[in-house]
Each structure stands twice: as C-alpha cells, then as structure tokens.
C-alpha cells in the first residue's frame, strides 16, 4: 500500500484517496490512492465501499475479527449544496449475514468526514482499550473512550463534542455495539447506519466512536453548474413527490399498507393489523406535539419526533413502528414509541430487533422457549426483551444473535418462521401481497431489505397484479435494485427519487457538473449493474450459496387473505421462476454465479 497519494489530480468531488487506519497500532495510517478508473466505476458510498471490501477484506474473514475492515465511505456529491447529498455509507462484512453490508446515515459527519481529505476512512485492527478514533487529516489518532463507553450513542456523541471542541462530528455506537449484538447500529446526530450490525463490528475493534473534523476543501469541477443544479433540485424537492415525507414522515405508510394488506403482523401470520389506527401518524394524539427536522443539506425534512407520555421525544419511522408494533402485536403507541426510543439509545436496528423478538414471541407461545412472559401484544415484554438483548440476561444472549442463528439453536421448526433472508430480518413489506418485492428481498446481496431493492414501487404502481409473480415483476426488481445502487453510491437520499423524471440522465448531469466526467445515462446504468454484481461477487467469495437467495418457509406455505377476500399465496415454484428470470437478466448462471467477462469489468481480482 502506498503511503502517499499519487500525483494525478483527482476528479471534482473527490480526494482521490482512502485513509486506512490500523487501530491496533494506536491509529497508524496508510493511504490508499484511488485511481480515477475505480472512482468512475464505483462512484462512492455503497459502490466504492464494495470495491474497498474486495480489496481490503481478507477472504472469509470473521466479521468481528480484528482483521476485518470497516469503511466509512463518502461520495462525490457530499459537501455540495445538492439537496440530500450529505450522506455516508458504512461498509463491512456483516456479523448478522456474513455477507457484504452497507448501511447509510447522514448529516454533518458525511461532510466533515470527506473534508478530512479522504473519500473513505477504513478501520482495521482492534484497539487495546475502548477508544475514540480522531481523523482530521492524514494523521489519525486514538484517545480513550473514557466514560463514554457503556453510554448511549447520542450521549457519547454529546460528551465527545464537549470534550473535543468545535468542528468535530462524531459517529458512535451504543451499548449494543459494545456488546456485540449482531444488529447493532452506528449513529450520528440521531441517524443510524442501521442494518446489518456494523455497530458490532466497530465495537469489536474497541472503537466507541469515530470523530472527524474538516481540514481541507474538495471542490466540484463546475461550481456554477453545481449551484444551478442545486437550485433546480431544491425547488423540485418541495413538490408532491416528497410531500409524504415532509408532512407525516415514513409513518404515513402504516395505515396505507394496512389498507392494502401489506403490513406484516405478528411475525408474518397476517398482513393487516386491526389496531393500526392507534399507531398511525394521522391518528396519534401526540401528533400535535411532533417536531420536524432534517439532515444537513436536505430540503425535505422527513424526520418527525413524537412526544411520549413522559414528555420525552421519540424518532418515529414506519419501519420502527411496524417492527415494534404490528410485527410484535403491540398496539399501545406509548409502548411502541418507548421501544423505538430505547432501540436508539441502545443502538439496535429496530427492524432486526422487532423481527427477532416477534420470532421469540411465537416460539414462546408454541412452547419452544421457556418464556411465559413473552407474548404477542405485550408492550412491557417487548421492552424487557430489548433490555435483555443488550444486557445478555435471560433470553438476551440468544436474541442478540438475530432470528436466523437463534432459530438454529432453538430448532423445533422455528427456522421456518424465522423472518429473515440471509440472516437479515424482513422489513415491513409483506412479500405475499407484493410479489415483485418478494423477489427483491430474496435476491438482494444485503439480505431482506427495502432500501436496496424497491420493487414494491412497481407492485404498487397498478401496472400488474401485485399478487402474481412474473416477468414484469422480475424486470421491476432488477430496475429498482439498479437505481438503488446508483443512488446509494452518488449518494442521494431515496426520498428524492420521485422527483426525477429520467433518473439516469438527470443523475449523470449531476455527476457531470461535480466530477467533470462526460458520464451519461448509459454509463450509469452499467455502473449500477457493476455495483450490484460486485456485491454478489463478494458474497460468493465469502461462502454464499444459492439457497440463500430465498424466503422464509412460512411465506411460501401460508397464504394471507386480503380484505377483498382474495387469497395471496406465493409458491416456491413461482419464486424459483422469478429468481431464474432475475439471474438471466443479470447474466448469472442458474446457480446465481456470474461468468468471466462480467468479472473483468469489476476491477477486482477474482
């Protein structure tokens, strides 16, 4: 690895290098030059993170071992006035799935992190004692975590801001990350890089937090062009395509999804929740006291903080409420808000926490777990389970493994209703009534996730019957996965996606003014395919098998009934047919493996 940057001037929006920090050796650092061909091929964020993992992760490395790298990856757009661009990706091998994982968060950490002069900060090794990594240039250093260890991420973040002084931006883990919960988050300013347990990876390195401070400038190729594009995009971001996020936040999904039977309930035993109105943004009595906020550089402002009975605030998103409410059968809004807030404090991914607890509730009710207190609908039990997950008491050590590993331990058929794909718990999109999404959830490299495959958009478009699988659904799953790959790499928030009429063309125009490249829509489409394939190739390297592109047995065996009386069922044969179609479009063989020519395009060694 070269200790200095190459001589070529990096393209606009880039530093042209990644900082590799070995925290075992008190923050000894090297610089990895990033060639323009690599930057153009992978852009940044999730894409560049995938390339870095190919390059830096030892094959079959244990996710939480000292040798495993964890990368904070920025993007060409971050730091520009383009709305929603202040985002960063955290990329590492997931302790939950054993696969490549990228999780996005946002706000000032993204801007300051890039302005340390790096397109990525990669952490390897394990600090001898709990530490905080400081990066504000080419010479990172470790300082003791001190009494921030054991504290909630937000508390640690605030304490470190006071200790370090002005200008430092901090991403931190909570107690869940310190204790190795496989779905622990990393958060900054209340936004979580939530999925896949990357908080546990950072915790395993004995790193409580990463603090960054801007010390340089990285300008775009065409500043005037960027300003004009930013003005245009900002104006469009106030339109109807983002109204839902502004006015109610993602919680607006809850009643709508309930009305169309796409709201998973009681561990996927149903697709509608009779008590959904009690938890709905439109109906919550606390709505009047909600406050709204947004990330840095964002004109949408999707964040909605609701006031709990005890006066404390709780960040509320659809996925939080789905996973901790209907999924666990809990309908008391204060219990759900309290559970959501507690997940934030502990640093737990709400979807995986809710999914794992819902599975445990079903196990308890079936007599597979000796936990008579753990019942669907019991908010106190939900809160107790969250505490045990992080403390390790009672069922905690089991549930901290996530539903896949826990089901393998408990057995008794509980594997069939463990709500995961590749070990990652399913989000709040019912696959049997959204069958394009069913495919997207099954084949995505990260596991069951709605942010890397948005095929639900096509399912809900009315273009076809959402209860039937077929070629159209396959095409939709591929298309939305591709779009997500580009947005997560440029990076732009997906809540902005509805404002683009010709997404690839418009994204290419944004990249042109930032980077100076003559990139066009066709090139970006190829970039999308490359990123998706690179993720799959990493997983193959790490031991992925075709059986992991699949859905839980329950979803393929038990139908759900819509309000119309129609029965929604997804058969194994139909899912197999869609997966085969997906592989064909992706240029994969019947086992889901790519061929030689496609690999050469990845710029990674096989």
């Amino acid at each position: 690895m070269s200790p200095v940057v190459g001589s070529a001037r990096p393209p606009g929006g880039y530093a042209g290098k990644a900082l590799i920090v070995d925290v075992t050796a008190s923050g000894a650092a090297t610089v990895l030059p990033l060639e323009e061909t690599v930057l153009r091929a992978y852009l940044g964020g999730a894409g560049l993170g995938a390339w870095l993992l190919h390059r830096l992760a030892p094959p079959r490395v244990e996710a939480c071992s000292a040798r495993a790298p964890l990368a904070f990856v920025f993007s060409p757009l971050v730091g520009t006035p383009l709305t929603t661009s202040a985002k960063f990706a955290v990329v590492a091998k997931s302790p939950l799935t054993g696969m490549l994982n990228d999780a996005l968060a946002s706000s000032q950490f993204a801007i300051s992190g890039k302005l340390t002069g790096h397109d990525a900060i990669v952490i390897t090794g394990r600090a001898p004692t709990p530490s905080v990594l400081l990066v504000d240039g080419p010479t990172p250093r470790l300082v003791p975590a001190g009494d921030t260890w054991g504290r909630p991420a937000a508390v640690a973040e605030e304490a470190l801001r006071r200790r370090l002084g002005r200008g430092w931006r901090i991403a931190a883990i909570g107690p869940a990350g310190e204790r190795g919960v496989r779905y622990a988050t990393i958060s900054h300013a209340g936004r979580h890089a939530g999925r896949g347990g990357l908080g546990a990876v950072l915790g395993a390195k004995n790193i409580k937090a990463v603090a960054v401070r801007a010390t340089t400038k990285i300008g775009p190729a065409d500043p005037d062009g960027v300003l004009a594009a930013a003005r245009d995009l900002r104006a469009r971001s106030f339109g109807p395509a983002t109204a839902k996020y502004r006015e109610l936040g993602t919680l607006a999904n809850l009643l709508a999804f309930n009305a169309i039977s796409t709201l998973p309930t009681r561990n996927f035993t149903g697709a509608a929740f009779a008590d959904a109105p009690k938890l709905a943004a439109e109906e919550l009595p606390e709505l009047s006291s909600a406050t709204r906020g947004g990330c840095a550089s964002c004109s949408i402002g999707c964040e909605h903080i609701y006031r709990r009975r005890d006066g404390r605030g709780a960040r509320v998103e659809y996925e939080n409420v789905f996973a901790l409410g209907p999924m666990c059968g809990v309908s008391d809004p204060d219990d759900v808000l309290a559970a959501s807030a507690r997940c934030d404090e502990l640093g737990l991914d709400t979807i995986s926490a809710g999914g794992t607890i819902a599975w445990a509730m079903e196990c308890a009710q079936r007599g597979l777990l000796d936990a008579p207190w753990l019942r669907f609908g019991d908010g106190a039990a939900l809160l107790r389970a969250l505490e045990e997950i992080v403390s390790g008491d009672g069922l905690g050590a089991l549930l901290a493994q996530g539903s896949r590993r826990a089901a393998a331990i408990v057995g008794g058929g509980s594997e069939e209703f463990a709500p995961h794909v590749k070990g990652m718990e399913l989000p709040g999109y019912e696959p049997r009534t959204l069958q394009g999404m069913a495919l997207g959830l099954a084949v995505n490299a990260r596991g069951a996730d709605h942010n890397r495959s948005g095929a639900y958009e096509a399912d809900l478009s009315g273009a076809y019957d959402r209860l039937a699988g077929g070629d159209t659904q396959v095409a939709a799953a591929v298309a939305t996965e591709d779009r997500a790959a580009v947005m997560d790499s440029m990076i732009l928030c997906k809540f902005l996606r509805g404002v683009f009429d010709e997404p690839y063309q418009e994204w290419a125009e944004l990249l042109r003014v930032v980077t100076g490249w003559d990139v066009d829509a066709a090139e970006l489409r190829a970039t999308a395919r490359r990123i998706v394939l690179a993720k799959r190739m990493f997983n193959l390297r790490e031991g992925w098998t075709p059986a992991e592109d699949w859905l839980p047995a329950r979803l393929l065996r038990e139908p759900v009934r819509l309000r119309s009386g129609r029965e929604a069922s997804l058969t194994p044969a139909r899912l197999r047919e869609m997966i085969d179609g997906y592989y064909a479009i992706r240029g994969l063989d019947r086992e889901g493996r790519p061929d030689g020519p496609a690999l050469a395009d990845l710029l990674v060694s096989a």
Partner: protein
Amino acid sequence: MGHGAAGVVLAGGRSSRMGTPKAALEWHGSTLLRRTLGVLARSVDGPLVVVRAPDQPLPEVPLRVDVVADPEEGLGPLQGIAAGLAALADRAHAAFVCSTDLPFLHPAFVRRVLATLTDDLDVVLPVARGHPQPLAAAYRVTLAPLVAELVAAGERRPASLFRHHRCRTLRLDDAALLADPELASADPALDSVVNVNSPEDYRAARCHPAPTVTVQRYGALAGDGHLGPRTVRAATLSGAAAAVGLALDRHVIAALNGDQISRDGALPLTSGDTIAFIAADAGG
C-alpha cells in the same frame, strides 16, 4: 372470484333501436364497453374476450382483452356465444357471457352466477326481473362445439341451447340469486340485468345516480385534514378521486377494496366499493 373463469362481452349487435353502436355509448367519461369489461375484469380471474361483428369498429378497450369477430354478421347472440366460448378453449373452464349494454352490472352478480356453475352443470341462467337473461349467464367453455352445431343448424336464439338434451341448465330466479348475501347487499333490485336498448333507456340510465362508494385518503393526500372514510357517488376511479379533490396523477395510486392497485381513471366502480387513495411514493 370464479376460479379459472373468463369473461365474454358480446358487442356485435346491430343496435338498431339505439341507432348508434351501444359499445361506444358514453358512460361517465368512458364507454359502456369499457365499463362492462372493467366489471368483468374485477370479477373473473381468467381472460377477457370481446366478440364483435365482422369489421365492426370498437372503442378503445383495455390491454389484455382478446377481440374476436363473428364469422358472419346477423346470426344473433347464439353465434356470439359460440365465438366467445371457442376463443377460450383450454384457457378457462367457464365464462360469464354478457352483452355490452349492462351499465349496472355488479361484480357480485357475476360472482354469484359463476359460483353456481358446479361440475354437473353447463349453464347457469338467471331468470331475473321476470325474464331469462342469456346474456348475463355462465356457460361451460366445453359447450362451444354444441353451440356451433346449433348455429350451423340455423338456430339464432340461446333458448335452443338451454332446451338441448346435452346442455344441463340451472335457472336461478330472483330469490335464488338474492340468497347470496353479497349480492343481496350490493344489488338488491338486480339492476345488474338492466340493459339499454333505446335512446330513452340510455337517457334514463344516465340519469341514474352513480354508485355509492367509500373513499379514504391516506397520509399526505388527506391534506385538508379530513381523515377517515367518506361516502361519495362515483362511477369511475377518476370520479371518486375528483369527489375528494384529487387528481390521478403519477403521485397517486388507488387500491380498490384493499386489493387491486390502479391509476386507471376509467376503472368502473360499483356500489359498496371502498377506494383507498395512497401516495405513489410509498416506501420507507
């Protein structure tokens, strides 16, 4: 919904009393043919077929509709039934066959008739509002050769089929039809079989109030703060949207009875429907 059942619309009549092709008659911003097809599409899970006269122009019809032509004009409804059933060979076990001029046809009626067509029957013939309704009836698709034989023998009227010894026909009178609680609730007067044969019929039908439906806007679409369901009168999806101040643009989708998702403004509505208007940008 009939399992493996199809829908057939006979659009090839001469419309001599109406003086203009009935298929193209305006119906709440759409056409009678569009409405009839839309109701059938909501009611069956098999293919849809339109039978027209040779060279007869048709108004625009939705995708995924097969259009077949009678081989010869003026051979009557039996020929239309023969052509429709023949077009369904191997694709459906049964079909609800109707004329294009049933503006009040309700999916509950279609489902009721199809559900009665058990394995030991070939035809379910409603005798509703005092008259046999061969063009609002269910037929087994395997009848196609027999119907073709009858046509070839010069028969023009469906009654010849119902009395044939190889056709097992069940007649359903009003009471039998309304024994189905869904139909009794949705169409207690059996308006489903009301057809329009003359300009006077058509005008009277157009004066009939649009169906009563329940509409709910979700999330940001309830921008005026009016939450909860509202009852409106609307014959089409766009009519329902307009009734609550929405336009069916790319930012809005609708779910019909919690099931089909649509942006098709011409989607016909019938009494008792529930429509959920949802932001198209669903997702977290």
